[in-house]
């Protein structure tokens, strides 16, 4: 594997490691963006109103049970090859953990704080945006980071439909019986997963209020 991974020839050109890495990162980030745009408002709305919690949990579980590869193939059969089926399969994978995290996070906000928010004269939108969401952020990030790990790992299957990403090395390696290339692809995926998670951990630190960190570590004394 080392020989394949550190061969300079594999680090340049349109099929080199940097290009595949960026493609893989591109799939991941766009998937997470689309999934967040769908899942956060849904989870937040249900968490805020308390209505439809049953539906949300059921939908999440149903989506989680879907085999991603089967979804990918079905969409390919329907819409043809390309990036579109990849995004459909990955977004379906990412929505449940983000939605569940947002829903759980909003439900878990101290009911006294929510009561006080209404009682001091916030409108419903203000209660949600200025109190519930900011306090739910740690759990929203939890769901989001879980989704990110799954998407980085699963984006490998993009190569199965002829698209790019680090999965190329895995599938090409398999086809050519080059197990060094396969293993290198897998290691690169794992490495990217760690880096992506670190990136979101940093973002979480920047955007979550110090008042919500575990006791004794937050804010200035």
């Amino acid at each position, binding site marked *: 594997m080392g020989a394949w991974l550190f061969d300079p020839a594999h680090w340049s050109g349109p099929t080199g490691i940097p290009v595949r890495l960026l493609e893989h990162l591109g799939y991941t980030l766009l998937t997470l963006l689309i999934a967040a745009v769908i899942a956060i408002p849904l989870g937040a709305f249900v968490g805020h109103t308390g209505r439809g919690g049953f539906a949300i949990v059921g939908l999440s579980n149903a989506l989680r049970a879907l085999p991603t590869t089967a979804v990918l193939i079905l969409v390919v059969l329907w819409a043809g090859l390309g990036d579109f089926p990849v995004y459909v399969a990955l977004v379906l994978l990412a929505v449940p953990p983000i939605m569940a995290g947002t829903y759980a996070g909003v439900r878990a906000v*101290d009911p*006294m*704080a929510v*009561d*006080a*928010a*209404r*009682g*001091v*004269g*916030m*409108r419903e939108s*203000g209660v949600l945006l200025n*109190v519930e969401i*900011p*306090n739910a*952020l740690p759990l929203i990030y939890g769901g989001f980071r879980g989704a990110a790990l799954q998407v980085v790992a699963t984006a490998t299957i993009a190569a199965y439909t002829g698209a790019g990403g680090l999965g190329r090395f895995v599938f090409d390696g398999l086809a050519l019986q080059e197990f060094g290339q396969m293993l290198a692809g897998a290691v690169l995926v794992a490495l990217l997963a760690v880096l992506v998670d670190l990136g979101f951990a940093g973002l979480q630190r920047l955007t*979550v*209020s*110090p*008042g*919500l960190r575990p*006791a004794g570590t*937050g*804010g*200035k*004394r």
Partner: protein
Amino acid sequence: MIEFRAVTKRFEDGTIAVDELDLTVEAGTITVFVGPSGCGKTTSLRMVNRMIDPTSGTILVDGRDVLTVDPPTLRRGIGYVIQQAGLFPHRTVLDNVATVPLLSGWDKRRARTRAAELLEIVGLDPAFGKRYPAQLSGGQQQRVGVARALAADPPVLLMDEPFSAVDPVVREDLQNELLRLQAELDKTIVFVTHDIDEALKLGERVAVFRKGGHLAQYAKPQELLSAPANDFVASFVGRDRGYRTLTFLHADVPVHPVATAKLGERITVADWTLVVDEQNRPKGWLSGVDGEVEVGEDDLVSGGSLYDGSSLRGALDAALSSPSALGVVVDDAGAVTGVVKADDVIQALAKARAAGEVPK
């Protein structure tokens, strides 16, 4: 002024929380709603700022029917304090207090300046402003809760069991602080509690509710104690209401001199001797030692409550709770001025009764 006119609240499951309530809360007073759980006291309070809407009847705040005002707008004009404060965990203390001014459209600087002022008013160091709620004790959080409610200077303040989640010592501090604040601010305060002692201490008027949302009696605290309207009020006010009545009586009780000694002094203990510190503040009692001894911390029997001249209840309690049966009297600085005896309190009570000072 807050007026309840034939207000009824029936919940969807059919329970009647408040039944035909007629009651007027006078402007500039602390009015306490007290009663057992399920008596409708909290529901009544929450109907004032439309956290709950009545099924029928009218509530007027300063002559305006609350149902004609958009709830968020109404609430910004009414201070709201709840149990455990309900602070926003993600905002600093200063931003918590600045909430209502910001909602009302003040600019950020003015709102924060006002918030810092309020921290001082409720007795918190402005340095607390930078902290987050989780870094404060329960009592401090509740002070912040009061500051937040007062920030936009509303004429009416609703307080829903605000002090029930803190320990008794802190609770007494907060109660005294509220009385001090009210003397300065002169708000119309509705205060809900299930604690009859708290009700009698804070309320200028007390409304006793009973299960099913009925108003059992609405009166001054002394009157509740001396003339309960019915058996429910009598039993709710408690068995020792005769003793509690003393809270509202102020009469001169003779103060007797007492033998005192300082720590480390060598004395011959005759009877009970009161041991004091350098500032003449009481440390404890000493007795049962034969001959000459050196006064040491270990030999002290801790004392009872102290009487600061407040009411006959304080005097009697000091005497009853003292190991020597002598109630220690202290001045404003906490220094010993003498002792009172229970017999003298009873005699003072008899005199007050003869003079017609005890309400019938």
